[in-house]
């Protein structure tokens, strides 16, 4: 497969033409924040945190879905990008009800980690304090919509890897939420195999095991690249 050479932050890098700017940035230890992206699942470019500047384009491009091109010059960490990224995180915080101190994922949360990393110590927007539901009907798992950032990792892992497609997104804009089986309580889902992959890929404490209390939920998504490769091998055969 042809190889493209280009620059990231002035550094000469190269990648296969089917790779993304994010892939190559990570290969070269260049940090790019991501929330919806996770290795092993198809990228969707939803969270917009990995936006980069590309010389010659007046638009910001999401690195996770931008394929590498010969001669492109990518900037990953300009002041403008930092400002936008902080603003995105602030909006995620005010749109939900994120209370780290009593969250099952406290200390193991990607949203919390990113906020700390990108220097979001307050929000300039007013908190919306939306009234959101918690579905504790499943005997093993629970979803707290207050903590959901709509990254759709659960939707994708359930469809792409487990093949159950229990999860989906219902509603639009501010009213969007992830649902099980066309918005029935999780306990009544006929498609859920109770595999728990959605729990492990959730970046926050939105999806969690019910036996866990504050700060106890560590997520383990290392199984994902392995399972993805196995599926590809199966399909090839």
């Amino acid at each position, binding site marked *: 497969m042809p190889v493209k050479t280009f620059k990231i932050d002035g550094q000469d890098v190269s990648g296969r033409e089917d790779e993304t700017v994010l892939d190559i940035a990570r290969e070269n230890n260049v940090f790019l924040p991501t929330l919806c992206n996770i290795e092993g699942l198809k990228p969707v470019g939803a969270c917009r945190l990995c936006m980069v500047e590309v010389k010659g384009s007046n638009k910001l491009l999401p690195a996770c879905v931008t394929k590498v091109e010969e001669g492109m010059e990518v900037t990953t960490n300009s002041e403008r990008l930092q400002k936008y990224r902080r603003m995105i995180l602030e909006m995620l915080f005010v749109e939900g009800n994120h209370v780290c*101190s*009593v969250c099952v994922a406290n200390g193991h949360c990607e949203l919390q980690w990113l906020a700390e990393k990108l220097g979001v110590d307050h929000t300039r927007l007013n908190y919306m304090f939306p009234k959101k*539901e*918690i579905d*504790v009907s499943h005997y093993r798992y629970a979803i707290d919509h207050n903590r959901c950032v709509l990254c759709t990792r659960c939707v994708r892992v359930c469809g792409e890897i487990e093949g159950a497609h229990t999860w989906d997104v219902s509603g639009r804009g501010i009213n969007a939420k992830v649902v099980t089986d066309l918005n029935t309580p999780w*306990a009544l889902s006929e498609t859920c195999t109770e595999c728990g992959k959605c729990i492990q890929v959730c970046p926050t404490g939105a999806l969690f095991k*019910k036996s866990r*209390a*504050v700060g106890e939920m560590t997520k383990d998504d290392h199984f994902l690249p392995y399972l993805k490769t196995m599926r590809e091998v199966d399909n090839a055969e």
Partner: protein
Amino acid sequence: MTNTITIDPVTRIEGHGKITIEINDAGEVTNAHFHVTQLRGFEKFSEGRPFREMPALMARICGICPVSHLVASAKACDELLAVRIPETAITLRKILNIAQMVQSHALSVFYLSAPDLMLGMDADPGKRNIFGMYEADPQLARNGVRLRQFGQQVIERLSGKRIHPNWVVAGGVSDPLTPEARDAILADIPEVKQITLDALKWFIPMIDQYREEIKVFANFPTMYMGMINADGSLEHYDGILRIVDADGNHVRDIDPRHYQEYIGEAVEDHSFLKSPFYKPLGYPQGIYRVGPLARLNMATHAGTPLADEALKEYQSLAWEERQSSFYFHYTRLIEILYGIERIEELLNEPDILSEHVQALANVNASEGVGVSEAPRGTLLHHYKVDEYGGITWANLIIATGHNNMAMDRGVFQTAKHFIDGKKIEEGMLNRVEAVIRTFDPCLSCSTHAIGQMPLHIELKDQDGTVLDVLQRD
């Protein structure tokens, strides 16, 4: 026409409260109230949450006594699981609960009340704090800090965190005790035991200087409620919940699950804090007190050697004298001594390092009540859940609540005795605050800087003309 003095906020207590004192034209106090001015809403916003979150969520009620809420909440959650939890987990929870009591009592006695007791009620307010105390007697101040540190370190060594630990969970505790933590705690015991004995030696001779305060510091007969063992010794985790009358006679043992049959919660216009009362006697006749005074007035003995001796000396005082809330301070010191000895006993139990510390189960009951003795008195958490374990209803009765009526009445009693409405002096008002401090109320359950809270009091006549102003910055 009535004039009103307002003390807002009351200083050196935990949380925000205010006192109003009504004075008639002759300068006599006609009424006084203690107001709690904040609303927390924990009972309401816990609705819908999975019950397993409750211990940690409820611990956030308080920065001083999060452990008390953890313990009472976890006990309520154990009932929802409807399983027997491992013995070692019970012992570890007991140690944690007692350590919490030691640190909280040390805070109350040394940081919040000792400045009044040691430097005098009329001392310069600028000096009347732990720093002034340090100037006057560095060793005593250091001892107070050390005692609190000991309690906090026990909590940290057990649970990994001094404030808001998440270690107590439904069904037990999340991690076993390590031998290193046990040995570190045991190594500190002789020093803190001696410090407490010295503190009692400092306190007891001082009592005589406060005869006037003892007479009027919420000194009236009330019933008492608290936990106790069947043999009459002290218990803070799972004893019998008992009510005794104003003469100390046994009235009733309450099954926590049926507390609502015996304890009502009245609401007064002047306070966000409810006024619990003993239902069979009605409101407000059903007034009772909880906390160290109640526990030590009810107990026949403490249950550990040194505390037994100290309690015997305390109980040599006449029963009538022990009705004064001033003695909360004394009983707090005895409970610290008991707590240190009890921690040592429990840490030496053979199975204390067992790794089986949590019973795992799902929700098996729809309702649970958890009761424990917090430093300030009986703490009660009551939850109802749906079939999936989501909280549908919660009710909490906090120790400070039980004492609300007694505090309110105590403020009036003290104000009536000390306040001369024609000329206010800071020392008079400090005594009215000091009676509240004897109860060590935990109002918002958050700690505040010592002596830094401003106090502004105006005495006005019926035309609104300011007669006297008192300012504390």
